[in-house]
């Protein structure tokens, strides 16, 4: 298989101007990966700055409440900046510095990757510009403020759906224009090679830790691992170390949004077909003419028309299962986890909780579910207040 390919998926579909930069990045990453000093610096920052390892927490009350499988939560929400995104931002930030690039650009949907990038740039003394759709800026105002406080410039994107897809387009345009001195910290396991591989590698630590922790706590591997899938970085990070453990089910949860119609959700594996968007070949939500569809999700971080190419490969070969959770069930899941465990999950992560709530009751008590809690819900308070009030669900 060619490097950067996952079965038929992945590759590089970009303007020629970016090719030299992608080759430079591929080379620099290959070197850094083998460099003990780079890995040691990354490990040290992950431990002392980001707060790794994160706990694998037995959710006793949730387990009892659902009946059925034992539920563990991998607590990526406890990381500095509030989500798994810091794993990748630290890795790429160190790489940018090593490559001598002082100007950093990033894109963000829910804002977590933007906050993580802004944080890492502040830490390493790099200039940071974050592209964010205006709709997402409205939905995630708190994270916009955080990024600005950290010294990043947040540039609103008013084209298209004004969400993540459009922010990625603008970041790519900036990179095409300023390619010689700019490093693009891409926020998920997608885009042109080497990003899907590199971002997965920086998030592999989730699955490596989870595997050791569950073996220590239970003496065996889990029945299934559940993670939400937007671009898919937290999911591929959680899944990767278990790929060869065929008895472990890998379950990715996409955004089912408000319905099955094109434009009402972001369930690429249910409603999409393979195509090329933003540099990679993967499943894309699109119309019959190849125009990329608008998407909807209550969570800005999953509201995206394509998915990381490694997930496309895992989907087609059947190694991972992909399902979706709709907005209503996701909101229910937020309340459920808050009330049973005192943990407020990000709306993204609540998709994984919703699937857990769906399948755990039908499982046996010796089954074990590990749910990757990719981020915490503080950023979503505005949306939660609005959505839960609208639905009259305060008393759930």
């Amino acid at each position, binding site marked *: 298989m060619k490097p950067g390919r996952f079965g038929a998926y992945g590759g590089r579909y970009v*303007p*020629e101007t970016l*090719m030299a930069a992608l080759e430079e990045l591929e080379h620099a990453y290959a070197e850094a990966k083998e460099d003990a000093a780079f890995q040691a610096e990354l490990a040290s920052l992950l431990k002392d700055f980001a707060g790794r390892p994160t706990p694998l927490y037995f959710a006793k009350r949730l387990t009892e409440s659902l009946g059925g499988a034992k539920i563990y939560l991998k607590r990526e929400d406890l990381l500095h900046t509030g989500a798994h995104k810091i794993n990748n931002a630290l890795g790429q930030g160190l790489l940018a510095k090593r490559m001598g690039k002082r100007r950093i650009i990033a894109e963000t949907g829910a804002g977590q990757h933007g906050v993580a990038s802004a944080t890492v740039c502040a830490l390493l003394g790099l200039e940071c510009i974050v592209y964010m759709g205006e709709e997402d800026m409205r939905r995630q105002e708190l994270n916009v403020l955080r990024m600005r406080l950290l010294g990043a410039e947040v540039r609103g994107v008013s084209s298209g759906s004004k969400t993540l897809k459009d922010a990625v387009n603008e970041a790519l345009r900036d990179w095409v224009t300023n*390619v010689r001195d700019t490093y693009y910290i891409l926020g998920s396991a997608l885009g042109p090679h080497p990003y899907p591989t590199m971002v997965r590698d920086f998030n592999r630590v989730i699955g490596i830790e989870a595997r050791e922790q569950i073996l220590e706590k239970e003496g065996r591997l889990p029945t299934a691992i559940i993670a939400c899938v937007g671009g898919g970085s937290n999911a591929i990070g959680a899944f990767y170390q278990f790929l060869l453990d065929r008895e472990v089910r890998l379950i990715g949860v996409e955004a089912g949004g408000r319905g099955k119609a094109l434009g009402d959700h972001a369930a690429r594996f249910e409603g999409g077909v393979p195509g090329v968007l933003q540099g990679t070949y993967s499943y894309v939500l699109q119309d019959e003419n*190849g125009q*990329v569809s608008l998407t909807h999700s209550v969570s800005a971080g999953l509201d995206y028309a394509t998915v990381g190419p490694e997930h496309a490969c895992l989907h087609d070969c059947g190694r991972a299962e992909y399902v979706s959770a709709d907005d209503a069930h996701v909101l229910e899941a937020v309340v459920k986890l808050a009330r049973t465990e005192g943990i407020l999950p990000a709306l993204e992560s609540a998709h994984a909780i919703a699937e857990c709530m769906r399948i755990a009751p039908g499982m046996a008590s010796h089954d074990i579910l590990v749910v990757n809690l990719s981020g915490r819900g503080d950023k979503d308070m505005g949306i939660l207040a609005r959505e839960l009030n609208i639905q009259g669900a305060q008393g759930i």
Partner: protein
Amino acid sequence: MAIQFQQHPGLVVYLTAGDAGLSNHRPGSAGGADLSLTREIALAAIDAGADVIELGVPFSDPLADGPVIQRASERALARGTRLKDVLGLAAELRAARPKAGLVIFSYLNPILRFGLAKFADAAAQAGVDGVLLTDMIVEEAAEYIAEMERVNLAPIFLAAPTSPDERLQAIAAHSKGFIYAISRTGITGKQKTLAADAAALVERIRRWSKLPVAVGFGISNADQVAEVAKFADAAVIGSAIVELIERTTLDHGEEQAPGAVARFIKGLHQPHSVQAL
């Protein structure tokens, strides 16, 4: 190959197919998109001296393009323009102007969705000469090149100032028709001055290829065309014309657009003259 540059420098004119500028009175009907204004403008451009027309397939996510072409794409999509409409327009232009060069300019996804082999057949049937895909690089292009060869269409690849020599060599090896040299790093759009990058890039391309080299991105006036003439075979004009169409339809109505484009193109071979824009 019908791609021939009749004058020096040759002129390649980009049009977003299905765009009617800011005109409102030809909305796409339920029966399909109305590409008649694009047809009239293309014919006027050819008659005014354009050697090659690039028919842009509008795409929802044109990440290599600047705001002018992005707006045109959005308008064309809002009017219901599909790839098959663009191919239909190409066939009409071929029938009307047998000697003009015709190139389909697109992002990859609409072509993939249409079907690569089906597209190659349809484009050849329509009388298209070449195809340029902005997000197709030579390393990924084996199947695409094979399809183009099968129906005798020219795959036109882009070369960038950032492309190292080994990439230029591969681009030269796989290109037919002409090579499109990007004058600078960046997205499409008018620029005040033509970057010095352009001449150096064309010189490097010539080491690897005997094909004509067209320079594009940022060219908007006769002085820049004259500058391109010193080192390249043709100039590509895109955003400047799309913007001219936008402004003309807004200020004077769409019926004035073909004439305005024709005057603009005629003026491109007269450096230091007053431009239409």
